[in-house]
């Protein structure tokens, strides 16, 4: 599983995102959060 897919799965299954738009927004926020 590549890292993007893993974060998408986290967004949907852990954070409760349902739409593609919500999933992408959460993935972006996780990238900002874990930048360093």
């Amino acid at each position: 599983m590549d890292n993007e897919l893993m974060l998408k799965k986290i967004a949907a299954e852990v954070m409760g995102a349902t739409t593609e738009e919500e999933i992408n927004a959460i993935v972006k926020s996780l990238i900002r959060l874990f930048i360093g």
Partner: protein
Amino acid sequence: MIFSELYDDRLSLLETTMSNKKGSRVPVISLCTTWAYYHAGKLPKHGLEDPEVTKKVLRKLYTDFYWDGIVFVRNGKTFSERTLNLLGGGTYQYDKNGMQQTKPGSVTSMEADEYPELISDPYKFILEKVFPRRYTLMQRNDEQKYNDMKEVMADVIGMFKRNAEEDKIAIEEFGIPQMRAAAFFNPVDIILDYFRDFNEILGDVKRRPQMVRDAGMSLVNFSLDHIGPIQPQPGKSLVIPMHLPQFLNAKDFEKVYLPSFKKVADGIAERGFKALYYFERSYAHLFDYLKELPQGTIGLFEIDDVREVKKKIGKSMCVAGGMPLKLLGKGTKQQCIDHAKAVIDEAAKDGGFLFTTDMMMLSPGDAKAENLQAVNEFVHKYGVY
């Protein structure tokens, strides 16, 4: 006055002052973080081990000293040691007392020839290039990676919950507003703090300035995305510590840093927010550029004398600072009060001035409690317009 009325009164005072106008008095602002643990006879690690300790520490901080607003309670992101271990990396670590320190050699996660990839798609570059280099979690097998990330997210959600509870103590129990709506870095500082370390980026500024500039421009939306769904609120600002410009001459600053900085500053203003810039070290050589920042800018100055700052660029921004930690930590009560009086007399006479320390309060030696107590009480009473 009950706490909700006190809160509203302080919020209105902060909004007026941050709009560079004269309120009813000079607001007294806290930049206190880990110093509060030492003041309460604890160590920062005790708060990491038990969130109830942090709550007690904060209640003591708000009881023992006068405050109209708080900007910092914690030092940036405070992922627990467990979270950092699960991730298998990161750019900081904790010492034996629980103080955050940058992990030596951990920042560099990008080579000089990778600027074009960063410029092409910052999110993709971070996900595909930076994360695998930074976190061992990203190199684990599928099941392990997902399960560990789930654990990390449980920790992070807990961290956000604790942060909200801590802010609630200030607001609901003491009527003290939390002035920070969000915190993030300017684009070129993202490159410095997360991709290319200090010596590397200084070399890049000389050898490939156009790349640094273009990478900054490509990160403008990345910075602005931090605002996300947040709405502007009175008395609150976006807090942006600045790390590179103090080491650049004016020519290099204008060439590589200013374009994306200005774009983000304008984006913040267009969205109706105020920005509080933490100008670390000295910015005297860049004052002419700072005059061009939009209305609603607040400048927190570390080394520059706020009395001079207010004279030179005070028409274009609200100025914050004034109380040197060196004096609070080593001086007498009377020396501290004399200095505070001189600052209020000269820097605050026309409003648009937030009284606070010149740096974040981190270590036990940063202030004697009796000095901080005397100064804050003095400014609260003497700073009435």
